[in-house]
């Protein structure tokens, strides 16, 4: 079998979390009783007209900046015409020729390395309603609540080469949307959906293979499964001497397979033309710049910094960077410059994560401050207190804003790291345990643990166990 390469392009649809819909002032809300968030405009009643929500434009431009896109400050909207019961006007107001955001890119991390994925465009459009099916009922039911919910569609270049890359790309987009607070990103509510374009080609080839578009991909894991299935299917077709046919397929995640929806010949003719009910969108350059400056440092940039500047693992760096409150806390701690970023990361991902999970609080909702945590870590790193003592101190400072040094003092947690004192202590313990010393010298290395334990006991637990171990080992081997 020849070696193949997978080529993937993604079209991501994300619902924006504006207060009102894109073209009318109905509430933009999910999960309410059918056909109650509807008005004559989003219901497509004769004579009604759209008016564009300014926040939709702002949010899309923010996303455009986050993906390094050219922003088209002068653009328009177009009608995409097709008949379906969930589309009351029988056209979707979208953008065809001139999208709000043009070419850009997104840097994502794959196996510890950065990969740049091209972005073709980001445009604004309206969502459609929902069809409800019930086997007991002969027809389908139409709920129009979702009609007119604002969407951005992010179209990537065919730069993605594996399902893992696709997943990293999607997750990066999701965390950016959350950072910008422009989408709720609730997968189970369908607030992010994607269409996947897949083709395969022989490794080394510069030509693209024939692609298939897969619709109905409703989760990131479904995207991974869909891409793998589709690539395998296409490779099998080629290996059997066949040719891949350009078509649109529907992904059935429950069955783990895609089925043909329509072939290229049946391709829809959407008859796009400029939306005559709306004038040109003109966003002044100052506003475009102001939106750019309003962006926070984004998760993919943070990830890169955490891995390359601080030496965190990709896994740890991802876990911190993808969560805005976590990463803000991490950065605040790092900026104090008193302990290792790696130690901060460990605390955030273990004790702090455990606490926030159990209490349902976010870090800023706890009493923990960057100052207190780093002061505590500093004491551990300096060997002033043991890890287990630190955990006890943490339990206090996460509940109330107190100086960890005072707690250490109060509870007498300080360790003894005085080498002279500890050497004397070790000498005494070794002298009192000749049998164990012999055992060790005869190869029973676990006697070391016993001797260190005896030293700790003799110090009433105050000795720095690391230093004690070092001294005892040195003396035994002398």
């Amino acid at each position, binding site marked *: 079998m020849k070696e193949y390469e997978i080529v993937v392009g993604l079209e991501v649809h994300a619902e924006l979390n504006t207060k009102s819909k894109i073209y009318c002032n109905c509430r933009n809300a999910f999960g309410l009783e059918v056909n109650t968030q509807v008005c004559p405009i989003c219901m497509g009643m004769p*004579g009604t*007209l759209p*008016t564009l929500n300014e926040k939709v434009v702002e949010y899309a431009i923010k996303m455009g900046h986050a993906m390094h896109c050219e922003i088209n400050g002068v653009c328009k909207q177009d009608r995409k*015409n097709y008949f379906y019961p969930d589309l009351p006007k029988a056209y979707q107001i979208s953008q065809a020729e001139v999208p709000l955001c043009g070419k850009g890119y997104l840097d994502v991390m794959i196996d510890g390395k950065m990969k740049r994925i091209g972005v073709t465009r980001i445009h604004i459009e309206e969502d459609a309603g929902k069809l409800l099916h019930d086997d007991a009922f002969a027809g389908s039911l139409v709920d129009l609540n979702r009609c007119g919910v604002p969407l951005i569609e992010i179209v990537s270049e065919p730069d993605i080469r594996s399902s893992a890359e696709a997943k990293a790309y999607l997750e990066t987009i999701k965390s950016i949307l959350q950072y910008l607070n422009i989408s709720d990103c609730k997968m189970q509510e369908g607030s992010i959906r994607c269409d996947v374009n897949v083709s395969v080609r022989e490794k080394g080839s510069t030509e693209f293979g024939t692609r298939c578009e897969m619709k109905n991909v409703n989760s990131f894991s479904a995207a991974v499964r869909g891409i793998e299935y589709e690539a395998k299917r296409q490779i099998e077709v080629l290996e059997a001497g066949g040719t891949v046919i350009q078509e649109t397929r529907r992904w059935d995640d429950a069955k783990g397979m895609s089925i043909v929806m329509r072939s290229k010949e049946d391709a829809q003719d959407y008859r796009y033309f400029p939306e005559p009910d*709306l004038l040109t969108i003109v966003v002044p350059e100052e506003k475009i710049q102001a939106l750019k400056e309003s962006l926070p440092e984004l998760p993919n940039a943070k990830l890169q910094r955490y891995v390359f500047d601080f030496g965190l693992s990709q896994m740890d760096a991802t876990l911190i960077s993808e969560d805005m409150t976590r990463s803000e806390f991490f950065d605040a701690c790092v900026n104090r410059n008193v302990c290792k970023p790696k130690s901060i990361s460990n605390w955030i991902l273990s004790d702090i994560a455990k606490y926030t999970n159990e209490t349902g609080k976010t870090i800023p909702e706890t009493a923990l401050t960057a100052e207190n945590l780093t002061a505590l870590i500093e004491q551990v790193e300096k060997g002033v207190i043991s890890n287990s003592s630190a955990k006890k101190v943490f339990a206090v400072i996460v509940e109330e804003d107190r100086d960890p040094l005072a707690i250490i003092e109060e509870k007498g947690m300080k360790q003894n790291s005085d080498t002279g004192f500890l050497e004397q202590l070790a000498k005494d313990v070794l002298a009192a345990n000749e049998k164990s010393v012999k055992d060790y010298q005869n190869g029973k290395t676990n006697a070391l643990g016993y001797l260190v334990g005896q030293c700790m006991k003799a110090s009433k637990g105050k000795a720095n166990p690391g230093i004690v171990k070092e001294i005892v080992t040195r003396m035994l081997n002398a």
Partner: protein
Amino acid sequence: MKLYEKNAAELSQMLQNKACSAVELTQDILSRIDAVEGKVGAYVTRCEDCLEQAKAVDDARAAGKTLHPLAGIPIGIKDNISTKGIRTTCSSRMLENYVPPFDASVMKPIRDAGLVITGKMNMDEFAMGSSTETSYFHQTHNPHELDCVPGGSSGGSAAAVAAGEAILTLGSDTGGSIRQPASLCGVVGLKPTYGSVSRYGLVAFASSLDQIGPLGKSVKDVAMLQSLIQGHDKMDATSAYLEYTDLAENLSGHVQGLHIGVPKEYFGGGMDNAVKESVWTALRLLEQNGAKIKEISLPSTEYAINTYYIIASAEASSNLARFDGVKYGYRAASYDGLTDMYEKTRSEGFGDEVKRRIMLGTFVLSSGFYDAYYKKAKLVQRRIGQEFAEAFQKCDVIITPTTPSPAFRIGENIDDPLKMYYNDACTVTVNIAGLPAISVPCGRSREGLPLGMQVIGSKFAEQTILNTAYAYEQLVGGFHVIPETL
């Protein structure tokens, strides 16, 4: 003189002077409707509560409230303008029983001012036609000659004014649909500048060309009604931000020094001689009173009809796609599955002319044809707009005939779409360029049928064209709108 024979300006005075009451006036209109509606057929739906509306105005006046000058004046509304609680059919089977849950934006000032809404006026189906013959319900007849069409698509609106079945009416104009029937019925009709009257609630035919406008017996009548309905509306993104002034108060009646452009392309071979002669007689009269006549050229006029039919049909094909039997309107009685339901509903619900335009629009937008038709038409549209803009550097108004010929016989053109389309030859350019234009009665044909003159202005120059039309009206001693033969 009966009340129904008077114009809105006169009746406004009488109502204010208590020379008559709104109830008396409305009763007079209702009895006139009873007398002639059987012959004219201007209405699709009549409002049962006219007298109550009129009584409310009289009560308010008796209570000493300050009322709008048009309070108590009976008005008919074209049946493509949404009226809350009153069915709005667009003269189509598709919307035979459709009752909008909301009012078009223009209805608010009309209701607030206390005009008495008499009913909904017949029209060509979805405003597609020039004769009101494509109405699903019935034919409207020209009050001047019942065998002739009233024009269209606002045929009911124009015929009602000419027959005294309403004092004022609202129409809509996409390619001449106010001006052409106004001309054929011998009344005054104004197509305002695109963006000056809200389109919210006007059932869209061609969104970039549609405008609601007034029809009445005199220039002052339409100026009064236009002053009432013009203005910015935040519900319509294409509505202009502008300070509007009262047009009726500022009618001067002078044309001294007015530069009138006369485009030669509108006086060509396709035009009836009587039409050309009548308009030139009017021009000479204006010239004798101080206007300056200048022959101009608008060379792209020859492409106007083609451009218009491409753009209007393209937009219509999309605007009318929502009539699919799901949310409102007609649904076929039997079908097999979703696609069949769509196709049967639309095929049974729409008439042939609507189908032709939807198909033309679908064709010009379809893959492989877009550039050659739609895109090119948009380019020609821009050129036509530029030619007008250049012309208005040299003149204040442009005067042309409104229609190439007087009213034609019912059935005469109905089987020949192209012949029908050429009725719009003089009017479509105005919509393509988004300009205001008014049609006023201007002489008669040999058979005694009304002819019309069109006065075109630059964008938002309603006052200038109304002044010009008003001056002409004064010079000819007023328009005698209601035919004695009816």
